[in-house]
């Protein structure tokens, strides 16, 4: 007989132990999945988790994919702490890519050193503008931000499809649904030769530190946490919940927009119908796995980025569908949520003792 008994105080150990436990469970379940499909489980796990990062190019690819995940998740985590459920980071990322990409395509022959900074600002503003819609609808009309931000993701993706099939299509591109390739001045400088890792990764590290500072050292960060934990106390203290909603969505949208700009001005180099393999959605997992803490999110983002590389490796080596990435990500979040029960409860074997 297994029971859960409430702890007197939340376990500090399990706050950090639960993600590690969840990763272990995911590995075991993954091994079971691989062997159920008829593959050698240990070899498959090796292919999924070790082989992709066994050389320096693999490592740079890992950080390349961790960049958008971490950026989006840092922004989302602020909202999740304040009970603002922005799940439309994918759409905000797409908007950031569209706005910055439109600038790059319009001035494709520019060699100005101001082009990149302008694109960065445009990307952030594009993401913010897209997140401002759910913020406005939530604060003005009480419309549920989960549904509005998600609906806007579909709208943003369709808008991108419209642009690359119409106004922004490459006039010399044989009618392929793609924009022009960006000029050199619109591409982010690379950190290493022979890699795709760009300067955005360093900016992301800076954002992580900034996110940590805002959440732990500023009044607005404190207000977000109080509104999320105890709305009544926040109300009593006179904190404005609308301010928290706006702040969360602006931060989440801005960082997602920045991530979108990094994608088009980094590894992609043009506007395409699809610019993100679901980074905005996966960032939700990253935010929880990282305990909604910017430093934790950095670690979690790197780990989850591995699931993209691993998915590609097993697709090539074992000809498994790329969707195995999504299966692993979903399992990871399930196990994490389940393991979180151990923060507030402990497992007790045996029958309930009579109260003394």
């Amino acid at each position, binding site marked *: 007989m297994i029971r859960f008994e409430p702890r007197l105080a939340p376990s500090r150990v399990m706050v950090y132990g639960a993600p590690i436990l969840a990763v272990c469970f995911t590995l075991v379940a993954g091994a079971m999945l691989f062997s159920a499909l008829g593959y050698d489980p240990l070899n498959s796990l090796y292919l999924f988790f070790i082989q992709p990062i066994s050389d320096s190019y693999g490592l740079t690819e890992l950080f390349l994919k961790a960049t958008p995940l971490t950026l989006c998740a840092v922004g989302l985590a602020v909202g999740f702490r304040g009970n603002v459920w922005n799940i439309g980071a994918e759409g905000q990322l797409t908007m950031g890519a569209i706005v910055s990409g439109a600038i790059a395509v319009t001035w494709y022959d520019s060699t100005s050193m101001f082009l990149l900074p302008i694109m960065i600002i445009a990307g952030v503003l594009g993401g913010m503008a897209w997140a401002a819609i759910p913020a406005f609808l939530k604060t003005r009309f*009480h419309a549920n931000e*989960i549904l509005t931000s998600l*609906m806007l993701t579909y709208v943003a993706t369709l808008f991108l499809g419209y642009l690359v099939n119409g106004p922004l299509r490459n006039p010399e591109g044989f009618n392929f649904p793609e924009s022009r390739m960006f000029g050199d001045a619109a591409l982010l400088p690379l950190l290493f030769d022979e890699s795709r890792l760009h300067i955005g990764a360093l900016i992301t590290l800076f954002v992580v530190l900034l996110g940590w500072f805002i959440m732990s050292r500023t009044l607005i960060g404190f207000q977000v946490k109080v509104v999320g934990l105890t709305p009544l106390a926040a109300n009593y203290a006179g904190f404005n919940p609308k301010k928290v909603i706006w702040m969360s969505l602006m931060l989440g949208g801005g960082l997602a927009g920045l991530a979108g700009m990094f994608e088009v001005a980094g590894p992609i180099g043009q506007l395409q119908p699809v610019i993100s393999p679901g980074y905005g959605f996966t960032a939700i*997992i990253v935010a929880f796995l990282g305990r909604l803490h910017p430093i934790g999110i950095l670690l979690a983002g790197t780990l989850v980025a591995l699931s993209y590389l691993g998915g590609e490796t097993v697709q090539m080596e074992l000809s498994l569908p790329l969707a195995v990435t999504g299966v692993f990500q*979903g399992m990871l979040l*399930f196990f994490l949520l389940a393991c979180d029960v151990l923060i507030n409860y402990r497992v007790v074997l045996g029958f309930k003792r009579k109260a003394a």
Partner: protein
Amino acid sequence: MIGFEVETIIAILLGVARGATPLVFAAIGELITEKAGVLNLGVEGMMLVGAVGGFIAVVATGSPTVGFIAAMLAGALLSALFAVLVLFLHTNQVASGLALTIFGVGVSAFFGLKYIGTPIKGLQAIDIPGLSDIPIVGPLLFGHDIMVYAAFVLVAVTAWFLNKSRWGMILRAVGESHHAAHAIGYPVVLIRFCAILFGGAMCGLAGAYISLIYTPMWAENMTAGRGWIALALVVFATWKPGRALIGAYLFGGVTILQLNVQSLGLDVSGHLMNMLPYIATILVLVLISRDETKIRLNAPACLGKPFRADG
């Protein structure tokens, strides 16, 4: 000429019913779950799993009936995972529902890969000789596939269940005040478990309608956000089955409008037209949510709150 126009209008109206039916199933399933006090955001994931499960079953057996049953089982199975998490491990319902969708998208794509491009025979409309030959009224009343009628029956039964039956009252009591229901002696967790499973089964059915009838094929992410639209419909309907039906048909209309605009000769980009259902969802949400008291009075009071018997 006039005969041709009437035929077009009839075809459009039949299309509306096909667009609306999956939304009816998913919205009613979620409505029951929410009436029991549980918010399951995994509708999209459960629909996709139902879509792929039903499709695989039809490819294997050739029987649509088996397909729909398999889809319901698949949806219910996935929702059971959610039920265990939120009911026994007291996880956050919003996060768990999102996890369910992410997992469902991945699992359905994983198992469906082999079936992309596999043709199946769509379910035919039930033609009642004589009745469906009546001009105009015949095809409109008797020219649908059986699931369209099943959706109406489901709405009627659900309305009766919630408002008139003893167990419906108990289900609502659990959703309004789980501590009071527990104190009277009702098995709160068991009732919620059943409500979640029912929701999962209905979402599975909705998914199968899309992969077996609406567009008889399997494609990754083929539900295209309909699960989220169904979630919005529940709010729009202020948790009333009849209004969910009306809402679903309104959205079915929007979907079909989008498909037919080009055939009417209007030169609008397909990408822009495809935005319509999503923008309509946002507008509808804004209109209904504007009146905060209306939502508060109609939403189950314990919606989204975890329940523990001892605390």
